[in-house]
């Protein structure tokens, strides 16, 4: 228990008939920036609230610095939260908001003033002491909320989608700032977002969540390049999920086939048997399309180009396979020589095809 500053042990939580958290366990190291990533309703906010003490789990335990705080009140934990809507006290000034926790501890006025100034400096809002929340912009309120939470010197800081309400530019800016702040203060950050780009940019580790369970916990690189499940593969970055039956097992690779044709995947030392049903994930940027006309002997999945579109800075080509499945290929550039109606063969490099949803392999 010594090296982990926060531990969640088999947490379960239901609201009425709905089971929101289903056996959640997590160990967070001191100084880590860990993100809970997942779609709306997956339970990430509930998890955060349980860590903060605003909810109590039905089963399971929460340990903070080795102590069992599962049933401790929020005001008795050394954890602070930055709320999604900032929750700034409208009737107090910026100074009043930030100094609130210090005033509760009855620190002397000089110390409070000093601490508040330092906090304002950290979030770059020097001179804003006497302003009222109603006079601030969204980004400024955001920073006051952060200042208010860190001034308490909590061991763990919880952030509930703090950048959700900001526009793109500001969000990117704040992402860098938050990361910098975290490194500077050395506080453990538990961050919530549904934006995978944000998670990949800022985190030391990501816990991908779905329907009250962690599907995978790992570094951004692990989660991106080695997704364990088809959900993780599709949620983080975009991936094509292909199903098939193993037809050949080689030393380093395996060959599988389905109604649309033949595919290859890297074996990665996993035990696979011929005839086994597998699921393979290939990222859209790793898909190659060759016109069937020009290469009659190419081996892959057979399909017909459906449409091309330009989105998010990438060209996307949608291909319909024989059994109706859609494959998406993406690349940089504005256009390609392929047009809708062309017959193409879908291939990829074997090491870019990842085996996912393997039973028992968690």
């Amino acid at each position, binding site marked *: 228990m010594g090296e982990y500053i926060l531990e969640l042990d088999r947490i379960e939580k239901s609201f009425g008939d709905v089971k929101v958290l289903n056996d959640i366990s997590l160990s967070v190291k001191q100084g880590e920036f860990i993100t809970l990533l997942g779609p709306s309703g997956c339970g990430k906010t509930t998890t955060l609230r349980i860590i903060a*003490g605003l909810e109590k789990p039905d089963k399971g335990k929460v340990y903070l610095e080795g102590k069992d705080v599962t049933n401790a009140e929020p005001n008795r934990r050394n954890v602070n939260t930055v709320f999604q*809507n900032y929750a700034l*006290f*409208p009737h107090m000034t910026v100074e009043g908001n930030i100094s*609130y*926790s210090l005033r*509760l501890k009855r620190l002397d006025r000089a110390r409070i003033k000093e601490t508040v100034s330092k906090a304002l400096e950290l979030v770059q809002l020097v001179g804003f002491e006497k302003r009222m929340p109603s006079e601030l912009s969204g980004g400024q309120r955001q920073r006051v909320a952060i200042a208010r*939470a860190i001034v308490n010197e909590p061991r763990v800081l919880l952030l509930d989608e703090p950048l959700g309400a900001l526009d793109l530019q500001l969000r990117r800016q704040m992402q860098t700032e938050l990361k910098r702040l975290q490194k500077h203060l050395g506080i453990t950050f538990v961050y919530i977002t549904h934006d995978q780009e944000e998670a990949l940019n800022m985190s030391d580790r990501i816990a991908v969540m779905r329907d009250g369970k962690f599907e995978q916990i790992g570094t951004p690189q692990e989660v991106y390049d080695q997704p364990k499940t088809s959900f993780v593969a599709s949620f983080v970055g975009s991936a094509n999920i292909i199903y098939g039956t193993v037809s050949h097992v080689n030393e380093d690779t395996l060959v599988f086939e389905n109604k649309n044709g033949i595919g290859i995947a890297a074996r990665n030392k996993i035990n696979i048997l011929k005839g086994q049903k597998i699921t393979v994930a290939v990222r859209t940027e790793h898909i190659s399309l060759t016109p069937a006309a020009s290469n009659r002997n190419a081996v892959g999945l057979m399909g017909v180009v459906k449409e091309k579109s330009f989105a998010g800075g990438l060209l996307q080509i949608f291909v319909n396979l024989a059994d109706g499945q859609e494959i998406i290929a993406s690349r940089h550039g504005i256009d390609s020589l392929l047009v809708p109606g062309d017959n193409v063969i879908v291939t990829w490099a074997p090491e870019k095809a990842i085996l996912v949803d393997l039973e028992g392999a968690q």
Partner: protein
Amino acid sequence: MRNNSKLANIYLGFMLVVMYLPIIIVIVYSFNSSRISSIWGGFSLKWYEELLRDRSMFDAAKNSLVLATSSSVLAAIIGTLAAVGMPHVNLRGKGVVEYISTLPIMIPEIILGMVFLVYFALIGLPFGMVTLVIAHTSFCIPYIYMLVKARLVGIDKSLAEAARDLGASEVRVFFDITLPLILPAILSGMLLSFAMSLDDVVISIFVTGVNTNTLPIKIYTQLKTGVTPKINALSTLMLGVTLLIYILSAWIGKKGSHREDLQMEGK
């Protein structure tokens, strides 16, 4: 279609005149030096002077003020605490009690007065200020309770959570966060209660003691027995007080609203 036709505006204007007519007449005749209201005898302040010299009026005024203040303060405490605590309490039948507590403003005043009279007699309370305060408090509580309850609903729940997250106990949350934010509602409720109490004649008649007079009771008895223009003077003064209370309440309303703007945006 959106703006009023001329006819509509004329109607509004006419009705306003009719509404204010009696009030204006009372005010005007308070300065009438003639005793008989149908004859104008010239401008005079003598009725005001007489009023100020009338001891019994003074006592009645004092009683009314004490009564109104006590009732609104008592109602404010009981009503506010209840409104704040009710959402967190899990008693069966709390909805019923809530409903019953608002009955005093829903049943006809005559019944309320009668009911209090016989009840106070039954339990042996001395008729006078005590019974008056109890009776008035009963019809002041619902106003404050409902106003505070409505205001509470509009307050962002995450504010209390943020305070607890920062280290505040439940008690501190109430004093630091909840109370300042519901204060406008409490104050408007108190002002409304104050005005209602000052105005009450029916219930007061029933539950007052022999020696305790309130202003409305005094006016009422004088209206029935024999009127002097002193009443006009008194009425004019009371009108001024009401106007003052109204301006106060509007001012408080404005102060509360800028906080509401923030809460709307913050979502």
